């Protein structure tokens, strides 16, 4: 039951929450605003917040001067590719652990989680050398492989917690009716599992899109996704704030929008089902 709260108190909470929310969001807002300024206005003192000549010239400059679309496309291929590949490997595994649990299931799950604890830097050198020898450095396929393996434990865990909620009685009923294992998976489980799979997909695309250890270390110019493209702005010459802001805005906008849709699944996915 909701407690009755005086309007005055509610107004107080509202003001406090909006101020804090706005402060946390401000760096993003400021980046978006700056992306519409000229370079001179971007560093003018005192800074102008709204009253300047809004321009989109930075966006056209970034698009013209750099291979923005190539990096964008790299990000799309790498994040979607690694997620889909991960799902293909993880769905059968999660299915079997959720519906045919054995006494090892919990240990397998914990072990998978423990592979996430392996610090990437601990295996950076062998991976780098193996990639060099196989010609996988600066290739999209190489990054797809690495990010698939990196996120596989999270994908398995997320799917497992979703599958676990599908009542086992339904499977038994379908089996009584003579459904084969294949029928069972295609006609009974899959329709019930689609929402969980969709959430898993969404969250992992976000994680892979923003991954910035392997993407920075294993790519140069060709296969670099947006994370690495933006990092190339770290030592620029001359005036560049407005262009940096435009490039940043374009890099974060798609995932910001996806992310807002996924906030509920995010909690469950990233906590391995421990908080719902």
């Amino acid at each position, binding site marked *: *039951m*909701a407690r009755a*709260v005086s309007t005055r108190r*509610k*107004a107080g*909470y*509202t003001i*406090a*929450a*909006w101020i804090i*929310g706005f402060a*946390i*969001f401000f*760096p*993003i807002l400021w980046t978006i605003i700056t992306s519409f300024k000229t370079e001179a206005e971007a560093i003018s003192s*005192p*800074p102008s917040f709204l009253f300047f000549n809004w321009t989109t010239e930075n966006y056209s400059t970034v698009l013209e001067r750099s291979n923005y679309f190539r990096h964008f496309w790299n990000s799309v291929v790498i994040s979607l590719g690694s997620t889909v590949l991960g799902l293909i*490997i*993880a769905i*059968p*595994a999660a299915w079997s*652990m959720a*519906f*045919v649990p*054995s006494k090892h299931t*919990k240990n397998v799950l*914990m072990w998978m989680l423990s592979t996430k*604890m392996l*610090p*990437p*830097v*601990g*295996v*950076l*050198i*062998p*991976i780098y*050398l193996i990639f060099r020898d196989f010609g996988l450095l600066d290739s999209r396929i190489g990054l797809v492989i690495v990010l698939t*393996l990196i996120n*596989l434990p999270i994908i398995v865990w997320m799917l497992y917690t979703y599958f676990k909620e599908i009542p086992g009685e339904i499977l038994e009923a379908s089996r009584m009716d003579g459904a084969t*294992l294949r029928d069972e998976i295609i006609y009974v489980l899959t329709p019930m599992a689609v929402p969980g799979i969709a959430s898993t997909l969404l969250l992992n695309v976000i994680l892979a*899109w*923003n991954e910035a250890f392997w993407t*920075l270390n294993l790519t140069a110019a060709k296969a670099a996704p947006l*994370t690495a493209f*933006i*990092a190339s702005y*770290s030592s620029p010459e001359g005036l560049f704030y407005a262009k940096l*802001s435009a490039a940043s805005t374009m*890099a974060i906008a798609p995932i*910001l929008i996806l*992310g*807002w849709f996924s*906030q509920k699944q*995010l*909690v469950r996915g990233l*906590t*391995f089902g*421990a*908080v719902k």
Partner: protein
Amino acid sequence: MATQHSRSAARIMISPAVGLLLIWMIVPLVLTVYFSLLRYNLLMPGTERFVGFLNYKLFFNNPAFFTALINTLLLVGGVLIVTVVGGILLAILLDQPIWGQGIVRILVIAPFFVMPTVSALVWKNMFMNPVSGLFAEFSKAVGLQPFDFLTHAPLASIIGIVAWQWLPFATLILLTAIQSLDSEQMEAAEMDGASPLSRFWYITLPHLSRAVTVVILIQTIFLLSVFAEILVTTNGGPGVASTNLTYLVYARSLLNFDVGGGSAGGVVAIILANIVAVFLMRMIGKNLDA
């Protein structure tokens, strides 16, 4: 009931995931340990030879190592304190009746979706820059000397940036946990005359303990490996003032091409992560049973 047939099917279905993770874990791990016992420099191919624990000795004798170790712990600890304390307070605030709660939630959660290189560059240039950053503008406006954050307080600045990225995550999880709190229990306590502070201390906080554990676990995994934020803001400097273990190994191996020395650092990083992991896995394992 699981049949013999479905059991063997289950084993087949789980094996690709388990097999791949096993390879992914063991092959590089064995190679890292092996490389760490070699003198192996990419600039001098063909001169690899077994040197025992020399790389470890050099690594431990390097003063940069202890700085990096301390920095790693400070970075993880600092961000955890800011995000957990901030997250609890923010979650409690967002749990109150608020007009436009959905929009505030969206504003608060946003930084989590910003890629690390973007947030690091935005903070570095547009906020912390001592000449044209917003903080410098603000200092000038109130008549203070602008502060050069990344030169004079590099680690603290990076902690700030990383905390900004992770505060939304902590808040969101803790808010989800708070919302599952039984309101009748709260009302009963209120009627019995419990003060807001004691209600927080004896009801809200114990209820949140599981969520806090999870937040600490997940964040520690990611925070031990902070890399991009350091690379684009300070390059680990000035000196090694903001170098963590991850960055030190990167600098050793990929900038100085010292595979042997870098691998020794990698092994140390793995051991450190394992010490943390043992504690945390025990906690999450217990929580999963509950």
